[in-house]
């Protein structure tokens, strides 16, 4: 199949996922009504009488922003995971490798326990803390790795990230142990959820994803070369050290922003890049935007399952991404491996 055709197909699947995600929920609404409601809200006009005002509200103010946030988060995590894997040249790397989740969780825990709230925008307190905690941990990881090893080899970066992540995690465990009544809230944040995300969250996620993706598109050939190894990239003319810092920075920004609203959601960032590579090849020029589409669609489906399968209870989204993702990943990844040759 031609790449162009696959692209269109992925785009259609993405749109389809958004529609399905908006359509299905506790209040059943037909696809036609969903489209009508969206049309009325975007282009103006009057709602037909058969659609209750309340239903229209649920669709436009609750479900659609939630679905879009899920899409944007999935896209950010997947793109950032793909960049990490290529830059660190490790198929097991993910956007969490450098300790972003531990740092974010710890900061979120501290804010929750201390009851600290930002003036003017209290709803941003937890996300801001998570974002800053995550970014600080990654900066510390990269800074330490630079000190340990002036060439910034991948092994050093990965090990430093892991060790620092575990170190920060220990403080998180201690904080959690003393959290008392807040325990439930902390645990839920660490499990991830799109509950209660609104248009204002989309308004923050969308520009950051767009800018991040556009910047990354300028570095696609550097990433291609770096997957062959640092020395090969250097020899071809890539300023490897600088490029690594820039790319790890952008990718951390994406992850940090994504998890700041919805908490820690694992697995997507690890498997979506592999699935995308299988379907669209490794070239980052194509693979990165495709990661955004596939990761976004995947996240919508997972969120859909999480909120409907045991409705009205919502399952932790992180569990669903793993339950759906693992078998799918195994199928995609291993089906073509039969003919591999080694000598």
């Amino acid at each position, binding site marked *: 199949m031609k790449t162009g055709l696959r692209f269109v197909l992925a785009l259609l699947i993405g749109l389809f996922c958004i529609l399905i995600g908006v359509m299905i929920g506790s209040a059943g609404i037909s696809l036609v009504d969903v489209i009508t409601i969206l049309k009325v809200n975007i282009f103006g006009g009057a709602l037909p009488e058969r659609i209750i005002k309340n239903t229209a509200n649920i669709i436009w103010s609750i479900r659609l922003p939630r679905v879009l946030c899920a899409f944007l988060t999935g896209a950010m995590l997947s793109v950032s995971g793909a960049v990490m894997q290529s830059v660190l040249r490790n198929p097991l790397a993910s956007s969490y490798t450098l300790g972003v989740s531990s740092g974010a969780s710890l900061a979120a825990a501290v804010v929750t326990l201390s009851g600290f709230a930002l003036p003017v925008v209290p709803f941003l307190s937890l996300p801001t803390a998570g974002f800053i905690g995550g970014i600080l941990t990654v900066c510390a990881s990269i800074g330490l790795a630079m000190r340990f090893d002036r060439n910034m080899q991948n092994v050093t970066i990965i090990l430093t990230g892991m060790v620092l992540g575990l170190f920060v995690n220990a403080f998180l465990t201690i904080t959690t142990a003393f959290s008392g009544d807040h325990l439930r809230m902390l645990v839920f944040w660490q499990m991830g959820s799109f509950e209660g995300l609104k248009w204002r969250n989309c308004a923050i996620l969308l520009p950051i994803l767009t800018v991040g993706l556009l910047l990354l598109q300028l570095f696609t*050939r550097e990433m291609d070369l770096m997957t062959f*190894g640092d020395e090969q990239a*250097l020899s071809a003319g890539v300023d490897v050290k600088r490029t690594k810092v820039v790319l790890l920075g952008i990718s951390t920004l994406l992850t940090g922003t994504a998890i700041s609203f919805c908490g820690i959601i694992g697995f997507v960032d690890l498997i979506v890049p592999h699935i995308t590579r299988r379907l669209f090849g490794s070239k980052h020029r194509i693979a990165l935007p495709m990661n955004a589409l596939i990761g976004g669609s995947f996240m919508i489906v997972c969120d859909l399952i999480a909120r409907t399968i045991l409705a009205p209870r919502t399952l932790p989204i992180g569990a669903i991404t793993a339950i759906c993702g693992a078998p799918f990943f195994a199928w995609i990844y291993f089906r073509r491996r039969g003919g591999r040759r080694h000598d």
Partner: protein
Amino acid sequence: MIELKSMRAGYGSEEILHDLSFTFESGKNYCILGPNGCGKTTLLRAMAGLIPHKGEVLIDGQRVESMKRRKIASKIAVMSQINTLYFPYTIYDTVMLGRYQHINRFSAGASEEDRRVVDRCLEMTGLVGLQNRMVDELSGGQLQRVFLAQTLAQEPDTILLDEPTNHLDIRHQIDLIEYLKGWTADGRHSVIGVMHDINLALRLTDETVFLKDGRLAGAGRFQRVATKPFLNSIFDMDISAYMLDALEKWKTISDTSSSEKP
């Protein structure tokens, strides 16, 4: 032209090359010979600015550490040993990556010129017809040729080779050397290679640089530098006796297959 002036290099606090001075002239091929651990690979890596050094490394008169990677890449390409490949690319895309320094970050992609160069490099390395195969499905020998094509596509003045024949059978080893001889025949390009197989090295060039214990032990045309006592002192064995012994064996090889023997 690559000049080394009192160059020292190593890894961390361990110095491997001590006070090395030598000039690699452009348009000439060189092979670097010496026993294991004498610093051959370190020398190549220091020359390409891949590892830090003390003293001076000058590429066409410019200090390597003051040059941008793109600038170095336009003059020197290093064809490295094969790494593990984690992410699959097609042969064509892999070779096209060699054009990195020729393609602007903001441009739409490869130009006509880039495609023409890549096609020529695929042809030179005998990869025409295979360009849509994935690199993780190739044999070691094919992969080595893909990386050679990538290195050639970079259009450097000088190619540094580190054990380029590691994964190749004897025919492909000789093929590779022939490609390189062809590439350098115009007198504008040169190859500096680290090779273990002395016979193979001498097929490519007569100019030799001998290293021992991180120091320059001798340099110049092989026939002139490599006396018996000299080779013995470098390799701690009687190389020429070994070669002659091998030659004797080859001389007794029959021209006909055994079934035809009486």
